[in-house]
């Protein structure tokens, strides 16, 4: 049995890609439109159809209330986390959200959680891969920002499951990029990967040694990227429009989206030109224009890109390295195309950074390399192994509200810690543990991961039970917890309340619901195919009517064919592919005699010395009976 294909997926804030190791090189799998990038935009059209990617982009402008972008910013987050995002992004959240509940975003009159929306993007990538291989792909490696916390990782894994993909591994984006770069890298060196994408920033420092890619430190900011630069420019445009023209268009989602589009174009232009013009059409035939120079742009974005400096310095400190110890600095993410960003990286590491590989594609290519390693490896990858770290410390809340760290940040994963707990009250049978992630001293300043309730502790005097709890962070950076009471040797029952995130049951339901969309996809395709076939049939019938054989049919036969044709044309307008197919079949039967006579006359004219070309079988489907035509050939 051939090993199952495992694809690598970069589920990005702005764009997503799927890649695969073709022989010894990773390649990006293009979509049906021939493009490598699938914009991470999802829309629900008026017919209730989910639309993803380039096709969904026009919905952002035309029907902004039915479309969503940058949903990655909401993955694994709660209502109270996203207040700042809501001011800048047109996310339309469901009104009835309770604190701590997984967010739901409105598309038209329906609501979807961020993992479900990400699943739509993943499903589109899966479709592209299915088409490419002409076989279904069910296993994938998906990349996440290195600085993603447990909840954000879990949400990404859930998205994969909902999309019908078994997620074999979550790989950190900068690490994945280093794998793509490291394919040809045989010598030992220390590499810094500076990854500034659409919505997230990561810095990872790796030691490369004989195929081992060992991350020594990582840091970042999961809410820092090109989006923040766009928002600065959008704010300026909105202020200008209000100031100069006197109308506030902030509430007009269509115009805001048009401005956003223009701003992104201007930003991109400024990477190669010294100046550009921001140009937006406004209602009432007016337009807004403003010239922006690169110098102005650089001054404007300085505070944003400066936010990457702290994490870089911290990562170097954690790695115990100085800038001069770094042999290579690698640029990843679309925002590293900005010259000022490159200059900053050069200043930070005192060397010209590398950007040989397309910064939009390198993460997906690296994910494909990792997928190849997981599937057993090939000649190119057989020596390669990735040793990644956990980006954030794991801790337990102490009684006073402090944090006792049990696994420190930058520990190689998988990593584990055993902690012992006891009871404080006579006969106490459960103990609650609050697990947090982060570097701060107080639990309230850290990210709450989950509350674990250890149950079924045998009643004993206070302080006597010894409960051993094992915390294990797996290779995906996701926490697993198990517990045992040591005196009785009994496995404790653990009830987990994730602070944010979907329960298993919710994910299962979403998988079931997703089948509806999958079925809808399937049905849509069937309808399209049946209609195409019907068109072919009707074209052939038109030709048949011009054939002398048509006149030789009895008027009753001709009447019958006309009736069947009308029936097919009527049913074609409906979405019932089975009805279309049966109408085609009946028409097929009804035109059998005509087809036979056409064939006979074609054959006899050939016998009379005419060649096939002049025998009026015509080109294409000459006979209304497709099978008959095939027999002539």
């Amino acid at each position, binding site marked *: 049995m051939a090993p199952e294909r495992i694809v690598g997926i970069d589920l990005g804030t702005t764009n997503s890609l799927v890649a695969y190791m073709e022989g010894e090189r990773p390649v990006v799998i293009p979509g049906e439109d021939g493009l490598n990038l699938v914009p991470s935009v999802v829309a629900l059209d008026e017919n209730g159809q989910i639309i993803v990617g380039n096709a969904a982009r026009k919905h952002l402008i035309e029907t902004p209330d039915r479309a969503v972008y940058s949903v990655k910013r909401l993955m694994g987050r709660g209502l109270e986390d996203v207040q700042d995002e809501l001011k800048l992004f047109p996310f339309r959240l469901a009104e009835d959200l309770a604190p701590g509940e997984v967010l739901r975003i409105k598309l038209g009159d329906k609501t979807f959680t961020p993992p479900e929306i990400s699943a739509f993007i993943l499903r589109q990538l899966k479709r592209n891969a299915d088409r490419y291989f002409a076989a279904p792909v069910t296993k994938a490696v998906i990349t996440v920002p290195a600085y993603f916390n447990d909840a954000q990782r879990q949400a990404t894994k859930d998205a994969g499951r909902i999309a019908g993909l078994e997620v074999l591994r979550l790989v950190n984006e900068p690490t994945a990029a280093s794998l793509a770069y490291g394919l040809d890298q045989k010598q030992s060196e220390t590499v810094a990967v500076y990854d500034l994408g659409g919505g997230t920033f990561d810095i990872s420092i790796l030691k490369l040694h004989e195929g081992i890619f060992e991350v020594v430190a990582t840091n970042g900011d999961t809410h820092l990227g090109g989006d923040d630069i766009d928002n600065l420019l959008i704010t300026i445009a909105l202020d200008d429009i209000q100031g100069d023209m006197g109308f506030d268009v902030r509430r007009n989602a269509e115009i805001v989206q048009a401005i956003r589009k223009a701003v992104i174009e201007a930003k991109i232009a400024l990477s190669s030109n010294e100046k550009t013009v921001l140009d937006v059409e406004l209602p009432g035939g007016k337009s807004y224009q403003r010239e922006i120079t690169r110098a102005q742009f650089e001054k404007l974005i300085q505070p944003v890109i400066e936010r990457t400096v702290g994490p870089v310095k911290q990562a170097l400190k954690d790695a115990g390295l100085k800038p001069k110890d770094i042999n290579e600095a690698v640029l990843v993410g679309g925002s590293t195309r900005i010259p000022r960003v490159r200059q900053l990286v050069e200043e930070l590491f005192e060397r010209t950074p590398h950007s040989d590989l397309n910064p939009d594609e390198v993460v997906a290519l690296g994910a494909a390399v990792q997928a190849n390693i997981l599937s057993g490896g090939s000649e190119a990858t057989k020596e390669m192994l990735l040793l990644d770290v956990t980006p954030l410390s794991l801790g337990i809340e102490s009684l006073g509200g402090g944090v006792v760290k049990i696994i420190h940040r930058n520990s190689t994963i998988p990593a584990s810690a055993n902690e*012992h707990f006891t009871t404080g009250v006579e006969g106490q049978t459960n103990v609650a543990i609050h697990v947090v992630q982060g570097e701060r001293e107080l639990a309230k300043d850290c990210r709450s991961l989950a509350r674990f309730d250890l149950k079924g502790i045998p009643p004993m005097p206070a302080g006597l039970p010894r409960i051993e709890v094992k915390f294990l962070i797996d290779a995906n950076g996701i926490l697993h917890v198990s517990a045992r009471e040591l005196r009785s040797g009994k496995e404790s029952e653990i009830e987990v309340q994730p602070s944010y995130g979907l329960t298993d049951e919710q994910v299962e339901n979403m998988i079931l619901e997703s089948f509806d969309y999958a079925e809808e996809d399937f049905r849509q395709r069937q309808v399209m195919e049946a209609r195409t076939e019907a068109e072919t049939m009707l074209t052939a019938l038109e030709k048949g009517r011009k054939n002398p054989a048509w006149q030789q049919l009895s008027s009753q036969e001709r009447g019958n064919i006309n009736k069947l044709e009308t029936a097919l044309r009527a049913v074609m307008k409906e979405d019932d592919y089975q009805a279309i197919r049966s109408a085609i079949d009946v028409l097929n039967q009804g035109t059998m005699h005509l087809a036979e006579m056409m064939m006979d006359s074609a054959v006899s004219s050939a016998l009379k010395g005419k060649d096939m070309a002049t025998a009026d079988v015509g080109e294409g489907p000459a006979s209304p009976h497709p099978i008959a035509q095939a027999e002539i050939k």
Partner: protein
Amino acid sequence: MPQTKDKNAKDSGILIVSQSKPAKANCWSCGAMRAAQFCQQCGKVQPPVPVDYFTFFGLPYKLNLETGKLEREFYDLSRHLHPDINAIKSEREQAWALEQSSHLNDAYRTLKDPITRTEYLLRLQGVQLEEQSKAATEEARRTGQIKKQVVPPGLLEEVFELNMQLEEMRMNKKMGEIDRSLERELEDAKKHLQDKYDGMMQELSATWNEWDAQVDRSEQGETVLDEDRLTVRDKMVEVLNRRNYLRNLLHDIDEVLES
């Protein structure tokens, strides 16, 4: 699990000096005699056996350690035990790989750093270090109190003076006053303590040599008195406690100066 505190450890004789060698077993898959974590013959991951970190790496309980060699061993074992290498194996093998590689990573992380290595060995020897012992942590968690700190006797006078200065500095900052000479005094004290702190590595490494020599002697069949071992052990505990105390103090000074 030894419960004894280091104060009364002298009477309890909980020293662990001889390592338990994991029993040799046959590879579950090919039947060959196996190494501890994976089969040398067929490469398959073996079910995890609970062993301490030294034993996991096949190392004696010694504190001088060649980290380059440890790193090579770590990479080698990673190539067999990491979940990525075992991603398409049976569910059981994947679970073992996860367990084995997390143990490997924990062991490597603990042993590569000289301080955590020493603390770990002391813990194996039944010591619960005052500062970072699990008991102290547990106690703090239970009572909600800040971990108590015992001032090492040699530092008593200096620390008393310093704490007064720190308190004064905090008050100044609160009132928005600037006292340059006090700031300078604190900077000087910091430099002095930092030197002392750095010098402690030498003190500590001297105790390692003593400890390791005892291990060597006993391996060569000589008798090493428990009392002698305990003396070295307690010396290490004392240096570490002093070092930790200084570290916290330096941290406090930084906090006050930077605030």
